[in-house]
């Protein structure tokens, strides 16, 4: 009895809080959310990352936001290495703190992140997600960089002498699979004889293990490695074979190893969202297309140190495909299925 009673007394203040909130909501109903009425001066932008900002994927968002900050467009705050279990709290904290635009990655916290967006309709959310946007304020983006991945695949297919290409991934999630599949399609286009070795290490951050997986492939004859994880290019460098970079350009670190990289640029996405909130035209939207080559959201990195080492004929083929993609005449297939070894 006593317990139930105390439960009831506990409920009372919560009810009055709710009632208070309702009154406030009614009072505020006349005012439009920030993203619907435009913002003068610097926009307050926050980002919530589940991994350190060095991580390739997240670093692209961070870099784009840092650039916007340097231009004086935004005030930028960020939290890194946030556990998925803590993600919702940090989102709420930023929303409560008056951040007008929040970037992040919703992959492992879809439901919670979407609930937060509902609770804070005055804040604009732009999160990495494999799903659809949610009205009125939850936009999505993703690394749709299958086009340059296809082009790097063509280069890999043309550069391999053993006709065996090794691919080491973290987990076979759509974000990884679609790039691997596009890469494989590209390699097969220029070299139908090419075979693939595929393995996943079950971790995003275990470079020693990624390196071991790469060594195992090189022992089986792979002479070009698709470096989806840190550690793979290191194995390729040690064994003096070639590697293809992904998301970021790693050629400066491995000048004699990394032939080409498929780059992701978050600037078009980030700048578009910032401009929309500032202008008061922001709405829930799929920002995915802005990671495409046509919007400069992705690109094939310059061949750099390999400019003279890649055969001219191959370079011409890649160049032609690149032009076709940019002109909208060639569509790279988006295939999110798990890639498998073909030998």
């Amino acid at each position, binding site marked *: 009895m006593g317990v139930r009673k105390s439960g009831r007394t506990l409920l009372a203040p919560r009810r009055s809080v709710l009632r208070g909130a309702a009154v406030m909501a009614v009072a505020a109903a006349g005012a439009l959310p920030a993203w619907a009425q435009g913002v003068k001066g610097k926009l307050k932008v926050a980002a919530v990352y589940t991994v350190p*900002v060095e991580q390739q994927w997240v670093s692209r968002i961070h870099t784009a936001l840092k650039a916007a900050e340097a231009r004086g467009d935004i005030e930028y705050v960020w939290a890194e290495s946030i556990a998925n279990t803590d993600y919702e709290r940090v989102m709420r904290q930023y929303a409560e703190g008056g951040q007008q635009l929040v970037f992040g990655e919703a992959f492992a916290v879809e439901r919670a992140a979407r609930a937060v967006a509902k609770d804070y309709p005055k804040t604009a959310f732009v999160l990495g997600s494999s799903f659809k946007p949610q009205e009125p304020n939850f936009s999505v983006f993703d690394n749709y960089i299958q086009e340059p991945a296809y082009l790097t695949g063509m280069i890999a297919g043309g550069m391999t002498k053993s006709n065996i290409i090794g691919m080491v991934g973290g987990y076979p999630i759509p974000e990884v699979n679609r790039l691997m599949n596009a890469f494989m399609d590209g390699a097969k286009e220029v070299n139908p004889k090419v075979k693939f070795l595929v*393995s996943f290490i079950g971790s995003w951050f275990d*470079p020693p293990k990624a*390196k*071991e*997986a790469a060594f*195992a492939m090189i022992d*089986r004859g792979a002479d070009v490695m698709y470096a989806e994880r840190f550690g793979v290019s290191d194995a390729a460098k040690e064994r003096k074979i070639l590697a293809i970079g992904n998301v970021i350009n790693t050629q400066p670190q491995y000048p004699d190893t990394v032939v080409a990289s498929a780059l992701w640029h978050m600037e078009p996405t980030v700048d578009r969202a910032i401009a929309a909130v500032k202008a008061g035209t922001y709405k829930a939207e799929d920002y995915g297309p802005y990671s495409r080559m046509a919007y400069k959201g992705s690109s094939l990195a310059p061949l750099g140190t390999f400019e003279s080492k890649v055969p001219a004929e191959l370079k011409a083929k890649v160049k032609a495909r690149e032009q076709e993609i940019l002109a909208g005449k060639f569509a790279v297939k988006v295939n999110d299925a798990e890639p498998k070894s073909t030998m």
Partner: protein
Amino acid sequence: MDIVASLLDILVSAAFWTAVLRIATPYVLGTLGELICERAGVLNLGIEGIMTLGAMAGWMTVYQGGGLWAGVLAAAACGALLGLLHAALTVPLGLSQHVTGIGVTLLGTSLSYFVYRLVLPQASTPPTIVPFQPLPLPGALAQTPLTYVALAMVAAIAYVLYRTPVGLAVRMVGENPAAAEAQGLNVTALRIGAVMAGSALMALAGAFLTLSAFNAFFFNMVNGRGWICIALVVFASWRPGKALVGALLFAVFDALQLRLQQMTGGVLPYQVFLMMPYLLSILALVLVARRASYPRALMIPYRKGER
């Protein structure tokens, strides 16, 4: 039949055994470290955090201009310090060894990243160092020096534990601290010393990851290797020689799954292969642990004069 033939091909290749020794090294060092702690009666669940701190401290020392061996020493010293913290809480104060150990793990991992970020606030691609290079030896012997340190440690620790007075004393405080006390031994000092020495070895296991296996520090790179070491100690029945066997066995399974996964990738889901080393280890543990004789005073705090 095809699979059997390729399996044999893998097992006789030198490259496979090179990989096995390389993968086994952190497990050998970590298991020996845990073994010393437990032999003295203290369970050290701080291992995962101590390995992370060792990985960071060793790497950071080299990155700041120190030599590779200076990095190894710095890692060991940092490990010993965290060990001292664990021992101070669990030995004289007699706190729960489980809770304290988990606390040390949380502290070690967070502290590592905190220090890393303080020193390197500019986030970019993780900076690298020039790590230990494999020695110019034929076949599977072409390993980095730390692998040989690990192998030498197995012999050294077996010798110290079973052939020297200090080894006898360490084993005694783990079996029957009251009897050790009656012999005039200082149980508290022996246990603290053993935990510090064991933790230094765990830190070396972490340092191997950043100074030999790879050349940069990542927040999560220890990735559960410490927990495997805890299980390997049981597998080894608290004996250094068997610890080496256990670590090698786990490494064989891991090196094998990496190769089998790409070979028959289309047949079985990749997760099955990732599970393989763990499943086989559990199986081995079940078979071996029945006969394991654990240190009698493991996890029992010693209070002077208590009956």
